[in-house]
């Protein structure tokens, strides 16, 4: 589906189902240099089970127009605007990585709009190495290579393990990042690196929250989520063994089961 936010066209994948404002709505918010496709397997399930599954392309990503927001706070406000544009009273948010930070900040800023919050691979803070920031700023392909190398657990890096038959996870993830316009990855990573309000935001989240962690996540190590989890008032945590940062691809069923259990579909 397409709609307008702040004068820019927004694209969202709805699992081939029409959007119906009378149904409950879940927004899926992707991470740096990704698009809605990273949630295809999970969002499609909800779309076919009576829920408006809205897997967004963030501004400047995928098929959505505009500039990539320069901060997590700006992304959070954009999500608030998305909820208004959809004409629904409240939504649940499912965010991954940068998208998890944006969802967290949005839930803290706009508590009346967010029914439930699911954070996949969050980290607070979410520091990004200087070398990776520099490579991304230079639009150097090595930035994609570093991210890809760190985003998958060792078992996922062996060819043959993808639950989606015939698709090589690392190649597909690389190609998706390569499609991102120059400068977008640098903007996304800088936003992650600069965001310092994660734990404080967590204290202001009033809705139930799910945190899904990959036991082998190198991009956002589990230990970096502890303070965040401790600050959340109503939280449940799911840890996926042998899983890295790209958990929706590495463990699609386990991520879906965690979301189903939490969101109630």
């Amino acid at each position: 589906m397409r709609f307008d936010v702040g004068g820019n066209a927004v694209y969202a994948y709805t699992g081939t189902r029409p959007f119906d404002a009378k149904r409950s709505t879940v927004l899926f918010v992707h991470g740096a240099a990704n698009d809605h496709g990273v949630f295809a397997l999970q969002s499609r399930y909800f779309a076919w089970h009576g829920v408006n599954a809205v897997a967004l392309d963030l501004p400047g990503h995928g098929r959505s127009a505009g500039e990539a927001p320069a901060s997590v706070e700006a992304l959070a406000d954009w999500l608030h605007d998305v909820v208004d544009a959809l004409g629904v009273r409240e939504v649940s948010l499912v965010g991954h990585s940068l998208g998890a930070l944006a969802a967290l900040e949005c839930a803290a800023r706009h508590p009346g709009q967010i029914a439930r919050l699911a954070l996949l691979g969050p980290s607070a803070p979410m520091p990004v190495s200087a070398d990776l920031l520099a490579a991304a700023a230079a639009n150097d392909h090595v930035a994609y290579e570093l991210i890809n190398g760190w985003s998958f657990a060792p078992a996922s890096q062996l060819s043959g393990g993808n639950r989606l038959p015939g698709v090589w996870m690392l190649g597909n993830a690389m190609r998706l990042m390569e499609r991102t316009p120059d400068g977008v990855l640098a903007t996304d990573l800088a936003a992650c690196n600069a965001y310092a309000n994660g734990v404080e935001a967590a204290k202001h989240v009033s809705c139930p929250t799910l945190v899904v962690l990959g036991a082998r996540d190198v991009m956002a190590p589990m230990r970096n989520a502890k303070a965040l989890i401790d600050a959340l008032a109503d939280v449940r945590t799911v840890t996926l063994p042998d899983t890295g940062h790209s958990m929706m691809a590495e463990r699609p069923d386990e991520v879906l089961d965690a979301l189903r259990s939490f969101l109630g579909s």
Partner: protein
Amino acid sequence: MERAGHVYSRLSNPTCAVLEERIAALEGGIGAIATASGQAALHLAIVTLMSAGSHIVASRSLYGGSHNLLDYTLPRFGIETTFVDPRDLDAWVRAITPKTRLLFGETLGNPGLEVLDVPRVADLAHAHGLPLLVDSTFTTPWLMQPFEHGADLVVHSATKFLSGHGTVIGGLLVDSGKFDWNADGVREKFPTLTEPYAGFHDMVFAEESSTAAFLLRARREGVRDFGACMAPMTAFHILQGIETLPVRMARHVENARAIAGFLREHPFVSDVGYPELPTHPDNALASRLLPRGAGAVFSFNLRGTREQGRRFIEALRLFSHLANVGDAKSLVIHPASTTHFRMSDDDLRRAGITEGTIRLSIGLEDRADLVDDLSRALAAASK
């Protein structure tokens, strides 16, 4: 629809999936589909992209089976092909029409070993909003990774060098994930990927995945409905073969160089069509695109009659007289009477095939033994 995974072995299978991911990794693509044969892979690529009323521009230097499909069979289903000299870049452009949906060639033409200028043909394809499909059977990812040079899709007859021993039949269709099916000026050409498909829950494959739309449609329609899937045991054999691919290809190429050099100096041989030789028209292009070598299949012409050609083949002892290529064993064939039998004289001439053309597939044997065998057969034929 609700969960990823293997449902039925025609659609996907765990053993085939390992092979699919592995060839994708070797090619630098995003994924692949294992098929019953190389022909099935080519057919799957075409029917995924187009329907009746569409048009293909293809190199005229193709494997005879591919030529049959494009020239004789697909027109019956409304898909026409214009064949062009692969070296004539202007001819590729001139042949493109508003109905064109694909450009297709072989990385090394069969049997003349024309080296496809993949970067330039890919550029002109993309300038017209079209994908380039290449058959990389003769090169394998060890000699060339076509995606690095701009190709969008690759097909292999895995029966050949990938399996390596002539023991199984199989094909592979690999997707680079680079072609933007949804780009302005492109999406209207490929409704199979950019419009809802009633046969699969109204899915719009280019929306489902920005990168893997082609593969999704190919599996969820083409493999499902046409059914030319690979048997898992075949996938196992090809996986075994791929484990030794670098070792075998290095030896194949070393042997081929030695044999080409020997034949080039033989008085009963008029010419040798091996791109590493300075006499080959694509020698410079081969140096650039194929730095590890120009493969192990090539043709040469005898200075003699058709009868002498027959005597030459019959006198060989180590070479097997077979239509296959890419076997561990050295193979020999007379294309005009076998692999390219159905082509007209004009088509044969345009494909660079004469009645005296002999095609060799150089195997892994001791190269001195191969030279001895050829030397003796040439002597017998020249009497």
